[in-house]
């Protein structure tokens, strides 16, 4: 009887150890602002202030069922995000930060990238003759991002004659990029 119990205990311990080594223990999403920092998927430590400075708050699926982490809530636990989730968010951020990569995309493609990258989206005003969808970088209080004018500006030639994107604030401030 004792042997059976001992075996069960060993099996249970082995299972728990395997789970921990697999890197996805129980996750209690706690905002990073209350913590000291977080571990990313390869185990590197990210200080809390860097986490807060990161612009994206994408939904990143974990490799274990039932676990998802959102933005700074990646902090606590050992959530292992899937390669696809993280790389999609990272790629979206990179693409949107580079005007030459954005050039020629459709407004819908830009919208998809921005949603992936965690931008705050504000639709164009109904009362605008030239409606512009705004995409705000999180944490900047709507002072940085870009706007997309899917129909351009009425009566204008050049880039403004068709769909285009215009950055405001940040390193690309003022740059216009033609879209298709």
């Amino acid at each position, binding site marked *: 009887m004792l042997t059976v119990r001992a075996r069960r205990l060993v099996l249970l311990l082995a299972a728990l150890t395997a789970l921990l080594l697999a890197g996805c223990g129980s996750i209690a999403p706690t905002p990073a602002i209350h913590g000291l920092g977080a571990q990313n998927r390869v185990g590197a430590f990210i200080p809390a202030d860097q986490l807060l400075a990161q612009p994206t708050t994408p939904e990143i699926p974990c490799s274990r069922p039932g676990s998802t982490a959102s933005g700074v809530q990646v902090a606590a636990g050992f959530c292992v995000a899937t390669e696809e989730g993280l790389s999609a968010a990272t790629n979206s951020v990179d693409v949107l930060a580079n005007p030459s990569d954005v050039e020629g995309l459709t407004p819908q493609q830009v919208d998809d990238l921005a949603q992936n990258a965690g931008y705050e989206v504000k639709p164009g*005003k*109904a*009362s*605008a*003759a*030239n409606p*512009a969808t*705004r995409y705000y970088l999180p944490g*900047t*209080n*709507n*002072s940085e991002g870009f*706007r997309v*004018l899917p129909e351009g*500006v009425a009566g*204008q030639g050049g880039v403004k004659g068709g769909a285009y994107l*215009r950055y*405001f*604030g940040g390193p690309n*401030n*003022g740059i216009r990029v033609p879209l298709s």
Partner: protein
Amino acid sequence: MASESHFRSGASLRAALLALGLEDWIPIPEAVGNPEVLETVGTRDAKDAISRALTELVQAGAIQIYRGRWDADPEVVSPHEAAELLKDEQWYSFRVNDPQEERLYFVNVENIRHES
């Protein structure tokens, strides 16, 4: 000669602001940092020059001024009130650390669709 140059600069600045206001409701601090606006006025004394230009454009009925919290839809203000508000330097810089920050926006009246 200097006044002629000043006049040309003022006209270019107003044109740059009007062009910007065709794209959207523009927060004034964004205009202060806009390269096309700064090209016409330079970075030195830009806020004063932009303040004067916006006031002239309001008085000419070429733009409308809106006011609101950074995360809310701004409301239009009267030209008289706009002219008074535009004198205050607080509207020309972002204060992103202030969660209650209010902003002034301007829009070219040609960018406002009038419902019939």
